[in-house]
């Protein structure tokens, strides 16, 4: 069964199962309720620049719609609900004021995201004021408490599904750090108490409440006013909670998007540093190739999905075999049989721990020491206290001494030598760029490395190398063609974008296929700048000589004539031998199948038709050509 028949996204190397499907430690399905504050304060402008400034509300909406788009691609089984509070209109099952659950047709409130939901949600801002409206929900003198109601609604939405199998979260987007600020006296304490109690109740049901504060430097978001109590932060945690204030709205959107997704731990593993020093670390998959969803086979008549049934048939007798317990490999003219237990025993060579072997200078980690995407390692004190301390000490030493750790990582599937490269934290204006921790790089074994360069070894020591002048010209070129602000992964994958663009258009029933820009093409205009053109030309003359193009043309001509002469001869021969048969007659009498493949190919070559494929394909091609 070919799941990706076009081979679209798999190169020659198909990734291990281990790397495509992450083994998730905790519950794999997730339910999220986005609670978005829609109070007038959210519609304040961020930043001072009048033309470019946008509202806080916009930042929240765009980061949510961005994450929905990611979600529909990657984790479409997760369920989401979108819920505004501090609204004029109300829409919720409990019929509470100031809470509006946003939804589209054919979808429950809490359900998988659909193409329609994403489309309508991303353009909600235009109609928000007229359809839903914004107003403060907590005002003095009234018993209304929109935050309480919102939590209630969210909690009710998350009632389905057992917390054992589903992880449930409520994400609150707000820029109001003190929602009960304008209330005083007993009413205030009462409201705070009931709201916090509501949150505790939700947490008791296994619902995680997180707050995504939108804050700017002028008005930092202070969690300790109210939200620390709500989400149950204590002592140190309040300080650790990092609503880093940002200058620009794009950065805010960026930061929100990063925080919307839950960190998923791939595995918790034991890292043995030396005899009897075993610390614990969590591993995370920060970089994994995104693949398009798998193909489901459908019945083209009913569009219902089909079930694939696999059966094993004995090649000798044709009898049906149940899943055969043994495997074999031919060796020395006989079949050596293995049981599945024996095979897994062979592969089990270590205990699944990460085992430190020693340290090496960073420059010994070569560019070709790579096989698959790296895994991020971060310490945890959850079961073994002191793990973080040892990890940080090693991390700092490795950074300072410029070394990487060599370790053996032996899962049952594919044990390997790995390099652990310490990465210091990198922070930019938009928040954390590189988290602190170590990256585990999977190293090849001797049999995985090919010495291709050596194929080109010539017996005479006569290989030209560049002269200093040529190198200098290349350096100039390099400076001219410097990519400004290049960052890894700034490009979207054009094939994937196209894939999902088409699916989205089809899902929404649109006729127009979207035109997706391929960002990966070189910048033609930039390349045409005279400085670059000149540098290129200089370099070209330096390495190729003045008359390179002319030489190319003439050499091409000669090789061309050679090849074309040969091809011509082949065609002539084919025409000649094809003339031996009366093709129309053969075709009419169904006698084409009596001819041999080379004979059929003669006809095809003579008429300049492709000659690939099986015999049936050749015959059908001939028939088509003859017009039958």
């Amino acid at each position, binding site marked *: 069964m070919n799941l990706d*028949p*076009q081979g679209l*996204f798999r190169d020659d190397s198909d990734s291990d199962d281990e790397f495509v499907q992450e083994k998730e430690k905790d519950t794999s399905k997730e339910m999220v309720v986005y609670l978005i504050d829609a109070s007038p304060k959210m519609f304040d402008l961020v930043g001072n620049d009048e033309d470019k400034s946008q509202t806080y509300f916009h930042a929240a909406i765009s980061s949510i719609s961005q994450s929905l788009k*990611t979600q529909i691609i990657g984790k*479409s089984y997760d369920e989401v609900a979108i819920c505004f509070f501090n609204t004029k209109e109300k829409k919720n099952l409990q019929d509470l004021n100031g809470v509006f659950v946003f939804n589209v047709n054919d979808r429950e409130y809490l359900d*998988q995201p*659909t193409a329609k939901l994403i489309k309508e949600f991303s353009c909600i801002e235009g109609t928000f004021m007229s359809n839903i409206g914004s107003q403060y929900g907590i005002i003095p003198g009234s018993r209304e408490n929109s935050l309480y109601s919102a939590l209630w609604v969210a909690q009710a939405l998350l009632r389905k599904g057992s917390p054992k199998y589903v992880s449930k979260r409520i994400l609150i987007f707000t820029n109001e750090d003190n929602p009960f600020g304008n209330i005083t006296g007993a009413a205030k304490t009462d409201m705070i108490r009931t709201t916090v109690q509501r949150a505790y109740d939700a947490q008791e049901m296994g619902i995680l409440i997180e707050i995504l504060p939108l804050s700017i430097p002028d008005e930092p978001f202070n969690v300790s006013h109210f939200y620390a109590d709500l989400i149950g932060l204590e002592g140190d945690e309040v*300080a650790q909670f*990092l609503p880093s204030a940002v200058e620009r709205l794009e950065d805010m959107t960026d930061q929100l998007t990063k925080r919307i997704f839950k960190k998923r731990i791939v595995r*918790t593993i034991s890292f043995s540093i030396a005899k009897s020093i075993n610390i614990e670390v969590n591993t*995370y998959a*920060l*970089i994994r190739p995104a693949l398009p969803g798998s193909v*489901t086979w459908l019945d083209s008549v009913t*569009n219902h999905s089909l*079930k694939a*049934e696999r*059966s*094993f048939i*004995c090649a*000798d007798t044709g009898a049906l075999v149940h899943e*055969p317990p043994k495997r074999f*490999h031919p060796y*020395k003219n006989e079949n050596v049989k293995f049981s599945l237990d024996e095979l897994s025993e062979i592969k089990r060579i270590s205990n699944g*721990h990460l*085992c430190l072997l*020693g*340290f090496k200078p960073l420059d010994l980690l070569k*560019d070709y020491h*790579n*096989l*698959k*995407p790296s895994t991020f390692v971060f310490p945890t004190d959850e*079961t*073994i*206290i*002191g793990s*973080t301390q040892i990890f*940080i000490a090693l991390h700092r030493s490795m950074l300072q001494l410029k070394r990487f750790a060599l370790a*053996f990582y*032996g899962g049952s599937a594919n044990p390997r030598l790995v390099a652990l*490269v310490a990465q210091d934290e990198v922070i930019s204006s938009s928040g954390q760029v590189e*988290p602190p921790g170590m990256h585990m790089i999977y190293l090849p*074994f*001797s049999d995985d490395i*090919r010495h291709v*360069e050596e194929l080109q070894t*010539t*017996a005479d020591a006569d290989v030209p*190398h*560049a002269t200093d002048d*040529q190198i200098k010209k290349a350096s100039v070129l390099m400076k001219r063609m*410097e990519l400004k602000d290049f960052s890894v992964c*700034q490009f979207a994958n054009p094939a994937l974008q196209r894939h999902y663009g088409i*699916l989205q258009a089809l899902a929404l029933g649109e006729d127009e296929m979207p035109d997706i820009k*391929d960002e990966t093409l070189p910048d033609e205009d930039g390349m045409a700048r005279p400085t670059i*053109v000149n540098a290129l030309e200089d*370099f070209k003359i*330096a390495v190729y000589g003045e008359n*390179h193009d002319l030489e190319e043309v003439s050499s091409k001509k000669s090789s061309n004539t050679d090849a074309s002469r040969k091809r011509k001869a082949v065609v002539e021969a084919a025409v000649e031998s094809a003339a031996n048969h009366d093709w129309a007659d053969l075709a009419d009498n169904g006698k084409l199948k009596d001819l041999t493949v080379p004979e059929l190919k003669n006809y095809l070559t003579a008429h300049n038709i492709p000659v690939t494929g099986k015999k049936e394909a050749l015959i059908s091609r001939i028939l088509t050509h003859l017009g039958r």
Partner: protein
Amino acid sequence: MARSKEALVLLLDVGPSMHSILPEVEKLCTMLVQKKLMFNKNHEVGVVLFGTEETKNELEKEVGGYENVFVLRDIKVVDADVVDILHNIPRGKFPGDFMDAIVVGIDMLIKKFGDTNKGKQCLCLVTNAQYPIKDPYEGTKEDQVDKISSNMKAHGIKFDCVVIRENPVRSAGKSVIDENDHLLNQFSKNTISKIVHVDNPLALVGALRTRSISPVTVFRGDLELGSTMKIKVWVYKKTSEEKFPALKKYSDKAPSSDKYATHEVKVDFEYKSKEDPDKVVPPEQRIKGYRYGPQVIPISSAEWDSVKLKPDKGVKLLGFTDSSNIKRHYYMKDVYTFIPEPGNRKAIVAVSAIARAMKELNKVAILRCVWRQGQGSVVIGILSPNVSCMDNIPDSFYFNILPFAEDVREFQFPSFSRFPAAWLPNAHQQEAADNFVRMLDLAPSDREEMLKPEFTPNPVLERFYRYLDLKSKQPDASVPPLDSTLKRMIEPDTDLPSKDKSAIDNFHSHFELKENPKKKKPTTLAWNEKPSLTDNEAGADGRTSDIQRNLIQDSSVVKVEKIGDSNPIQDFEAMMARRDNPKWIMKAIQGMRAYINDLLENSYRGDTFPKAIECLAALRKGCILEQEPKEFNRFLFHLYDKWKTSDLLEFFKILPSKNVTLITKTEAADSDVTEEEAKNFPLKPEPSS
């Protein structure tokens, strides 16, 4: 096919100084031959030993000399015998002369193939090159090497050499060794040869590529620097994982008398509709569906082909950037190498100029590649220089694929500096760590780099091939343990020099690890102590650490730390009874409450009610015993509040009949619920907060 018919002559030094390492040589050679048996069945192999007592070679008969060189096997197609021969290489008693062996090897190849088969013949020499070679009859040793190598060149013979020396050489033998190394290196000047030095058995086992794979280009064409400037390059894979061999499924249906039975199993797929499981849908009626959210979108291959991305084949330069801009951990896949088109001097110079300039300025290039026409996807990657250190190998590039925006998950992690001080190492600890990192150096300046990926064999494959051979002789043999030489790469060296040991001990004494009492001990830790895997745990040295003892101690009695599904009431009682920390009581109560909540939440027509009532009764009892009536009463009110409007109301109606109601003042002094109120619950609830 002629192309696959390679011939190899192994030249093995079996002189006395090699004896200690010969078991590893045997392993290396059998592995090599075994793989040929499996993957290259028509390759030919000959084996020549030198340093033997006996002498057996044609040159000796023809021209004399060449003593102590023994042809163990003539050049023949690989078979099972050669594996057995190499399993047991006879040891020799004489210092071997590798130069004689080389000449014998060349003579064998020339006699067998003459002028044919050029470029597919190879000599492979394994020696420690510790003994001086004999002086030639005329000219110097250097002249001799020149003569031999021109002969090799004329016949297209390649030369691989592994020089193994475990210990640093004593000064007495130094001059001999230097001379020998010099002579061997001279080969590489004008023949296609490769000389590898290794200094430990593990590296020896990995020193030869045991499987020959004829490389295939991924791409041949232009590296486009711009529309006018192009360089002709060939692209190959530089690394590619050698997978565990794909084994076939075995069918025992064929009668044992059938000699020609293949025993193979064919796999057949049938697609059936879910509604009607008996109906098989024929292939032409199937259509592919792609999942998009909850929808599955049907689209035919033809339709898909007409709309999908169709980039043009080509490798285009986007620009250059600082190498520090691209972190090592972004490399995504196996690595490619770009080499200039062979024989194209212009291309060789152009690649060389760019590679050297890159290296000088610490720059890398960013490329966009589409390897084949009609490929449907593009890759972005980083081109880094590989400046050749050999005169006769042209400069080239490495190419690593970088992730696209979709491939990266930007999780946020707390800064280390934000951690509480107790989690951060102090100055002494940091110093101990620095020392530790310095001491456990795998690439000391006075030795070869240890565990170099190039020389490290895959232990699983090694084990598989060994087992395969074993099983072919004894079909019921059990899986052999991992080779002791290869253990070195799985566990740290056990016999370290004492200075290293002290660094570890010092590191050890500065840090303390203990189990988090809040958490149950994970099963993985228990694993750790498996004797087969860590055989040196039991008091091998005096200070088997406190840490370990700590871990063991804590885990010796498995204490209940949370309410499980199988025995919730017992778990609860066990937790309530724990006296090591008062907070267990609160934990138990909280755990039980959550558990009851779950039960009720998941109830279907009251199926969980009996269990919930039992649990509630247990909780009630516990709360009375521990004088925590309020906890229980509050919980009961809370439950009632939450579900009074739902169909769970039934549940509350059963409660009084089971004597499960609020805890009264008489039962626990702290309660402020009267008998009356308790009796009326849940009919007239009066929250007493």
